[in-house]
C-alpha cells in the first residue's frame, strides 16, 4: 500500500492507459477511438516523464558558468524521448482523423457497426 502511494503517478498512468485502451477497443465511435488513442499516448508520456523526474531538481537548462551538478538538473533524456512521442502522437491523430473524414464521406456515419453494416450491403 505504501508503495502504491509512493508511486501514485504510476497508478494514474495505468488508469489512463486502461481508459485509453478500453476506448480504442470498445468504443464504436471513430472520433472517440481517436481521442482514446491520444489519451493512451499521453499516459505513456506521463510514465516516461515520471521515471525521469528528480526530487527538487531544476529545469535542465544551465545558467551561469559554474559546473553543472547532476542531482540538481532534471533528466533531459526522458524529455526528448517524449518530445518525439508527442510529435508522433499528433501525426497519428491527424492521420486517423483524415481517415475518419474519408470514411464519413462514404458512410455518413462515425459508428463502426453502422459502417460495417453499410459495407456488407
Amino acid at each position: 500500500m505504501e508503495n502504491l502511494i509512493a508511486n501514485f503517478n504510476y497508478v494514474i498512468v495505468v488508469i489512463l492507459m486502461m481508459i485509453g485502451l478500453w476506448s480504442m477497443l470498445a468504443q464504436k465511435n471513430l472520433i472517440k477511438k481517436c481521442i482514446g488513442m491520444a489519451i493512451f499516448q499521453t499516459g505513456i508520456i506521463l510514465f516516461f516523464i515520471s521515471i525521469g523526474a528528480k526530487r527538487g531538481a531544476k529545469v535542465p537548462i544551465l545558467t551561469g558558468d559554474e559546473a553543472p551538478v547532476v542531482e540538481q538538473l532534471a533528466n533531459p533524456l526522458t524529455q526528448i524521448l517524449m518530445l518525439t512521442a508527442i510529435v508522433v502522437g499528433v501525426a497519428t491523430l491527424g492521420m486517423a482523423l483524415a481517415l475518419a473524414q474519408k470514411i464519413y464521406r462514404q458512410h455518413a456515419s462515425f459508428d463502426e457497426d453502422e459502417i460495417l453494416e453499410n459495407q456488407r450491403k
Partner: protein
Amino acid sequence: MTEQLPIIVILGPLLAAILSAFAAWFRPKWSHPLVVLGLAVSCAAALKLVFIVAGEGAQNYWLGGWGNQAHDYVVGIQITVDSLNTLLLAAVSGIALLTALYAKRLVDAELAGRQRYFYALFSLLVTGLLGIGITGDIFNLYVFMEIAALSSYVLIACGKGRAYMAAFNYLIMGTMGACLYLLGVGFIFVKTGTLNIDDVSTLLPALGQAQALFVGFVLILLGAWAKMAFFPFHGWLPNAYAHAPTASAAVLAPLATKVAVYAMLRIMVTVYSIDYILDSPGIQSVVLLLSSIAIVVGSFFSLTQTNLKLIACYFVVSEIGYMVGGAWLANGPGLTGAMYHVVADAAMTSALFMAVGCIVYRLGQAQLNDLQGAFFKMPVTMAAFVVTMAALIGVPPTCGFFSKWYLIQGAAQAGVWHFVAALLLSSLVKAIILFRIVEIGYNRVPHPAVEGNPAIPRNEAPLSMLIPTVAMALGLIALGLATSPLVNTIISKALPDGLAP
C-alpha cells in the same frame, strides 16, 4: 567508405523519398526513377554488408559520431549490422527494389491521378522497415516503427471502398502495438537507464528476474504481435492488405510483418536472452500453442476464401505462426528456422503477391472462378505462381522446404508435436489450394489445342511486371539452394552461444 555503408542503407530510400516529394510537383515522372535509384543504392550497400558481416563480423555505426565517448555507455544512437539482421536488410532492400520496378504499371493503372506521393511514401515505408532492421537502439526502433506504420496506413488508404475502414482499423491496432512497445521500452529503461541494445543486454543479466523486466518483455511482445498480426491480433491484416492497392500490398505483405518478427527476435535473442525465455516456461508453452493456433486459423480461413488476394493474406497470417513458433522453440534448429524463414517468407510472399498482382492487372480481379483459363492466358505468370506455391507448400529444393525442415526439426527436438502437426496441416492446405487453382485455371476450360475449341488469346502481364515476378520466383529456388552457406556463414553465428542449427 565501407564504414559508412550502414547509414547508406537507410539514407538511400530516405533521400529518394524527399527528392521524390519535390519532384512530385515539378516533374512527376521523376518520382519513380528517383525511388528506384535510392533503393538500388540501399540494396547494393546491404548486399555488400552481407559479405562484410560474413567476413569480419558485426559492424557498428554511431550517428553523429556519438559512441560511448569514454563513458560506460553509448550516449548517441547506434546502428548495427550483424549476423542477425544483415540478411533481413538485404532481403528488404532487394525485394523493395524489385517491387518498386514492378509497381510502376500497377500504380499507373490503379491509382490514376492519385499517385503524386505514392513513390515517396513507398520509399519512406522501406526506410522505416530498413530502420527497424538496422537500429541498435530500442527507442529509435519505435520511431522507425512509426515511420513504417504511418506510411503503410496511407499506402493502404490509397485503395478504394473498404480500404479506408481497413486502414483505420489497422491504424488503431498499429498504434496500440507501437504504444505497448514503447511502454515496454519504458519498463526496460526504468531498470537499466539506457536505450542502447548492447548496453541493455549487458546490464540485464545482473538484474535477474525482476518483475518490471518481465512486464516490459511481455509488453514488447504484445506490441510486436499486434504489428505482425499474430493470432489473436490478426484481424486487421486480411482486410487491410486485400483492400489496399495491389502495388501497396505487394510491398507491405512481404516486408512489414517480417520486419516485426525480426524486431521480436532481436528483443528475444539480443536484448533478453534465450535463457530468460527458458526460465519462464509457462509463457513459452502458451506462445507455442498460440503459434499453432495461428497456423491452423490462417490455413482454415485461406481454405474458405474465394478471393486470391484474401487467400494470400491468410497465408501471411499462418506464416507468422511459423516464425513466432520457431523463435519460441528456443533451440538451435527452431531459431535457425525462424531466422531463415523471415528471409524466405519475405521472398515467398513477395513472389506470391507479385504473381497475384499480375493476375489482377490482366483479369481485373482475383476471384478464383475468374481464373478459368488463366494458365493459357498468362502462362509465364502462372508458372511463377506455381513455383511460389510450391515454395509455400514446402516442395524441395525451394527455400520453403528448408525453413520447414528446420522448424520441424526444432519442434521435434523440443517435443512440441502440435506445432509439427500444424506445420504439416498448413502445407497440405496450401497444396489443396494450389491444385484447386490449377484445376480451375488449367483443366476447367476446353483445351485450345484440340480442334474445334476456341483459341484462348495470350494476355500476359507487361514485361515490367513479369520480369520481377519471374526473378522473384527463381530467387526462391536460388535461396533454397543457398541454404547451407547462409546457415553456416551467417545464421549460425546469430544463434545464442551453445546452440547449433
